[in-house]
């Protein structure tokens, strides 16, 4: 399967990814690819600084629409500087918590009743 490459720097036109609006543009591209089940490599080469507003809009928001499994299989993050990783972790952990799917208790039993 072909993997689409997205370079963050093409969106930010700077070494700093500090705009939620740029993050939103990246989200749109990822969303477009994910709906077609296309894999994407998101490349952070040359990006020296990110902020949560950018990461929330580009990556965090994915969790509102896709499951963790889908994101793991479709998204590959490349060349993100080591000292930016704690921030990414914070954003992803928060997104998973915010968009956690909560199913009603005893869902399996309800299914059995419906089958009858």
């Amino acid at each position, binding site marked *: 399967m072909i993997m689409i490459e997205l370079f963050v720097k093409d969106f930010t*036109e*700077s070494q*700093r990814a*500090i*705009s*939620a*609006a740029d993050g939103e543009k990246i989200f749109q591209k990822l969303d477009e690819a994910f709906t077609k089940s296309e894999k994407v490599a998101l490349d952070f080469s040359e990006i020296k*600084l990110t*902020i*949560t*507003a*950018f990461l*929330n*809009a580009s990556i*965090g*928001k994915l*969790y*509102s*629409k896709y499951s*963790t499994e889908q*994101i*793991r299989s479709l*998204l*590959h*993050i*490349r060349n*993100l500087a*080591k*000292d930016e*990783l*704690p*921030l*990414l*972790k*914070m*954003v*992803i952990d*928060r*997104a998973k*918590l*915010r*968009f956690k799917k909560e199913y009603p208790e005893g869902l399996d039993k309800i299914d059995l009743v419906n089958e009858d």
Partner: protein
Amino acid sequence: MKLFSTPKEEILFPDSLKTDEEGFHFFSYLIKETQKKKRFILNFEHVEWVEANLCAVLGAIVATNTKTYGAKFEFVNMKNSYLETTLRNNGFLKEITGEERDTRKSSAVPYQEFSMKNEEVVEEYIFKYVLLKEEVPKMSKGAKKKIYRSIFELYQNSVLHSGADQVFVCGQFFRYKGRMALTMVEIGKTFEENVKSCYLEFEHFSGADCLNWAVKSGNTTKPETETGGLGLDLIRDFLKMNQGKLQIRSGNGYWIEKNGMTNFEECERSFCGSIVNIEFNLRDKNEYFLSEELDANSLL
């Protein structure tokens, strides 16, 4: 204090304007009082001291009330040479009075208005006037990066939540104290308006309660499909280590955190927007090393 009302209204400035509750109280009065199509004489006769970063608040009031209400402003009695030099060095007088010569001094963090859409210009400003200053390079690379990130988290907060068109920024280096203050002001939605329009269950919250809620980790007024609420918390964590200070005045709320101690209270006068002041300790010797090894894709 009003001395007379027609055809001009004179407003006497207090002898000292600092970045504190009293200073914000005066600006809350000033913004409300000058929301009229009238000529206002801002009288500095008794002013002995003004913290230069507060030009962001004064500039925001003058620009907004001129544009929105047709108010006109005149600055008089700047006899105090310290005051005049301060306001001239950071470019405030040039901006307000339209005087032509560029009087900015390289040591100042200038007064500037930014369009919310012009993020590249803000980026350039912070880089040029904050990070490249001779006081800042003494800090570790990690500390500088955290300062830069903090400022941009604040700026994006304004972009995302204020609904305003412009943000007003001004700073000041306190050389002897080894600190730098940067004040950002927008005249738009207050924290209280944002919190209450998003969560009906907080209807009983005061302005200060809303501020205290908004600065906590994970609390956000973004739509349900978006995530947020980390920026202010991140700044607070850094400022605790850096021994810095964060102050927010919005609506009737005032919130301050300094040396890890938090205080928030309800004020008598409302400020129709938000003033955020961040103060960094430039003598921070921390390296801000990473404590754990992480792999980006295992985080997903």
